[in-house]
């Protein structure tokens, strides 16, 4: 299982990079993509995002999340890729894929991974607006 794919990617994430989780024994594959939206949560027009990461600790966090998902949900294969740097609206900022023999474990593991990533991975996001100064936005 050591061959899961965990990556920080400069620029937009290519969503296919997480497809490697599927194989002949793991037929249920759930993929989450976080795509840069043109609206912020408070409705302001967004023109882009910038991501920053404390790189090594972030990758270590991805690894810890994958191990925890396996302990909780059994035989699941996971891949996580997160963008760093400048992104435009429509770009993929994060891709998480989980594969399992059946869909329940794949859904649970994929959801667990993105929830935990957003809760604790040392990554930060700055929203660039059509009007006004850019602002760092936390997940809290």
């Amino acid at each position: 299982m050591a061959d899961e794919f965990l990556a920080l990617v400069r620029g937009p994430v290519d969503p296919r990079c997480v497809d490697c989780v599927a194989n002949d024994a793991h037929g249920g594959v759930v993929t989450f993509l976080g795509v840069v939206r043109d609206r912020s949560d408070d409705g302001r027009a967004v023109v882009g995002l910038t991501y920053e990461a404390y790189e090594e600790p972030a990758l270590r966090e991805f690894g810890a999340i994958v191990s925890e998902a396996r302990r909780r949900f059994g035989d699941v294969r996971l891949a996580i890729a997160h963008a760093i740097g400048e992104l435009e609206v429509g770009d993929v900022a994060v891709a998480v894929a989980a594969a399992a023999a059946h869909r329940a474990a794949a859904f649970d593991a994929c959801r667990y991974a993105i929830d935990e990533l957003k809760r604790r991975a040392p990554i930060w996001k700055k929203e660039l607006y059509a009007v006004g100064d850019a602002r760092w936005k936390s997940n809290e």
Partner: protein
Amino acid sequence: MNVRVIAFANLREILEPSLRSLDLPQGALVAEAWTELERLVPALRAHRSSLRIARNGRIAGSDEPLVDGDELALLPPVGGG
């Protein structure tokens, strides 16, 4: 002794470009490093309650002792995904 200091997101913008490292007495704790940082960059004070401090990439308690060459990282609330 000397410890490197890095910060992220808004804290990086507050810290830059003035500060890259910190001179501290031998055996200083994380808490003492923070007090020194606040003295040098008062704007940091407002963020104390929401930020976390990592030592060599791992979250550190304020009573953790530092050694020469350590890396301290100031981590604001995360915003990944």
